[in-house]
């Protein structure tokens, strides 16, 4: 193989040999400079471009978030009363005495008597994560129309009371009712 190469070189005339030699050295120099001078610069440029792109993207996302938060802040001010109602309907704590007071007030307003009220904190799986449930069982007595009215007013209470079942029994002139309901609150510990 080498002898053949040597033979070929010998067969070349002076000008051709000069051209080939010059070309070989030039190509070698170009390769050398490309590897040791151009490549590191290109790598640095590529890295900078990547970082710049990421930073630009992050900046755009932050701008969007700031704009959205500003808009949300304006809406929070605008709908303050509605937000207060939402907070009241699903409060952060469970105050039994307050709930009992409001139910008693409601019953008195509708002309019925609360015979018994039971509260039970459920240990079953939560409907929504961090939202705790308290079961209420209530026995009431009063005219049928008043019971209907009481149920309607209970729905309109600022605090959300979910009625699961209502049993109304009329025996002669006495109407009694058992209401099974649930109230919810957000667990402050989980927040």
């Amino acid at each position, binding site marked *: 193989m080498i002898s053949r190469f040597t033979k070929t070189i010998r067969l070349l005339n002076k000008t051709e040999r000069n051209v080939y030699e010059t070309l070989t050295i030039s190509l070698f120099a170009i390769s050398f400079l490309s590897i040791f001078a151009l490549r590191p610069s290109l790598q640095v440029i590529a890295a900078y471009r990547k970082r710049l792109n990421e*930073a630009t993207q992050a900046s755009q996302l932050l701008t969007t978030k700031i704009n959205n938060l500003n808009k949300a802040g304006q809406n929070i001010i605008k709908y303050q009363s509605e937000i207060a109602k939402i907070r009241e309907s699903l409060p952060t704590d469970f105050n039994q005495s307050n709930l009992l007071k409001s139910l008693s007030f409601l019953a008195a307003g509708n002309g019925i008597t609360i015979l018994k009220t039971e509260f039970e904190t459920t240990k079953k799986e939560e409907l929504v994560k961090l939202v705790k449930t308290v079961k209420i069982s209530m026995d009431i007595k009063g005219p049928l129309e008043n019971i209907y009215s009481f149920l309607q007013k209970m729905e309109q209470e600022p605090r959300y009371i979910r009625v699961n079942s209502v049993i109304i029994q*009329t025996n002669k002139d006495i109407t009694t009712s058992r209401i099974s309901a649930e109230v919810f609150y957000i667990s402050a510990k989980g927040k």
Partner: protein
Amino acid sequence: MPYENDTDSHGQARGTHPLRQAELDENIKDETLAKAAVSSNLGINLLPQKGFGKLSGKSKFLYWTTKYGRTIVISFQALIIVMLFYKLFLYNNFADTMETIEEKTAILTSLNQTEADLKDVQFRIVSLKKVQENSFKPSSYTELIKKLVPQNTVISTLIMEADSIRLTAQSGSLYTFGQMLSNLSQEKSITKVTLLEAQFDKDTSIFTFNIEITLKKT
């Protein structure tokens, strides 16, 4: 003329290869021209002393360096300088963007409370929607009963649940009961009516019944 006898400087005989012969002829021509220049007493010799092919490795490299090498090196240097400026431009942009990000982060920190409030409201709304699923409004059921049950029907037991109403009642006559059934069948929100129990007392003409009404899920 040493080449006329076809011998080299050591007096050895040369071959008659055509390529070799051409090279020899060229050398002779160069030498003749050089001698002519000297003999003309001008003292100027513009012809190269030796061809590239005859130079040693080191000389060849030096020759190449001064002729082509410097062009390549200068081109590369120019390219690298352009890259350097581009790098500086990118770095400058990157520094500016980072500064902007820091400013925006500071703004976001000041909006932390708004974000917390917003998340709290969103969480409460989602939770309320979830807990309200499959719930029912007793007032709508009572309205329905008032509408469907005729006036001379006395309800003794009424059970209201998420999608059903069960009632035990006494009707003054069969006609009243029939009227109630007709009302129930015409109501669009009712999907099924099941008569669980029915008793008719001939002496008192009172019709006692236990009925289950299944309602459409809202």
